[in-house]
């Protein structure tokens, strides 16, 4: 139970960090800088989610990534014991 809570806390912290970095750094992403040097896109995005949704998705992606990594690592350690 304690390990599960720690795991959830780590996932939440890294997800929140990713969300914060995606939504509030005020910095221009390198991809956006290069995109600004290009002609306008020939086709619109098939689906263009809002900025808050994007930031939330980035945070969710990081949290899911940490959870997958953590579970895999636990299983790797358990397998060798």
């Amino acid at each position, binding site marked *: 139970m304690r390990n599960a809570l720690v795991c959830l806390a780590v996932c939440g912290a*890294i997800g929140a*960090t*990713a969300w914060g*970095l*995606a939504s509030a*750094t005020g*910095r*221009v*992403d*390198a*991809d956006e*800088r*290069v*995109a600004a*040097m*290009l*002609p*306008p*896109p*020939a*086709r*619109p*995005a*098939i*689906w*263009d*989610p809002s900025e808050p*949704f*994007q930031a939330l*998705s*980035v*945070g*969710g*992606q*990081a949290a*899911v*990534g*940490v*959870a*997958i*990594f*953590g*579970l*895999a*690592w636990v*299983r*790797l*350690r358990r*397998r*060798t014991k």
Partner: protein
Amino acid sequence: MHISEGFLPLTHAAAWTLASAPFLAHGISKLNGARDNRYLLAASAGYLFTLTALKLPSVAGSSSHPTGVALGTVLAGPAVMPALSLIVLLFQALLTAHGGLTTLGANVFALGVAGPWTTWLLWRLAARFGLGDRPAIALATAIGSLATYACTSLQLALAHPDPSGGVAGAFLKFAAVFSVTQFPVAVIESLFTIAVVRAIVNSGGVRIAGLEAWAQR
């Protein structure tokens, strides 16, 4: 390094998709045949998922994310990375508006082929020349990360050549913008990757030729 929707002509997008297809097919077949290593693959995928979500602040008011391909390349080999990259890139194209669906092939080629194979070749070459495992992984990770962005610069340069400098001029222009931001991020990623590889190998669940001895030191 994600090329957004509409920034590549359809012919270029199709060509990069065709170029990625054999690597992707091989990667998926390797995934199916690697059931014994499913936890290593899961760790690699989790690492890739996490690092590509972290937009790190960099120099000159810009930000960028690490590529995260080095861990999977070292643990599972470069062949599986196109398949893992496809999962991440699809997630990002659909949910974070990062990348695009028609540019998926080009992005898979940069993140799943160019980066991992550069990392793997440099890691093996550096180890063969006796550089030591930690410097070899650090160098391979950093250069592999930069190679991903170099590939993206080439893809954009081929699609949008500079009126005066042509493809080479456009490549230098895009690569210059990317490298300023990506170099510090690549250095951070290389240090972090060393720590994670060391931790995983130390946990005892991994056997990689040449790495066990390093992890015990």
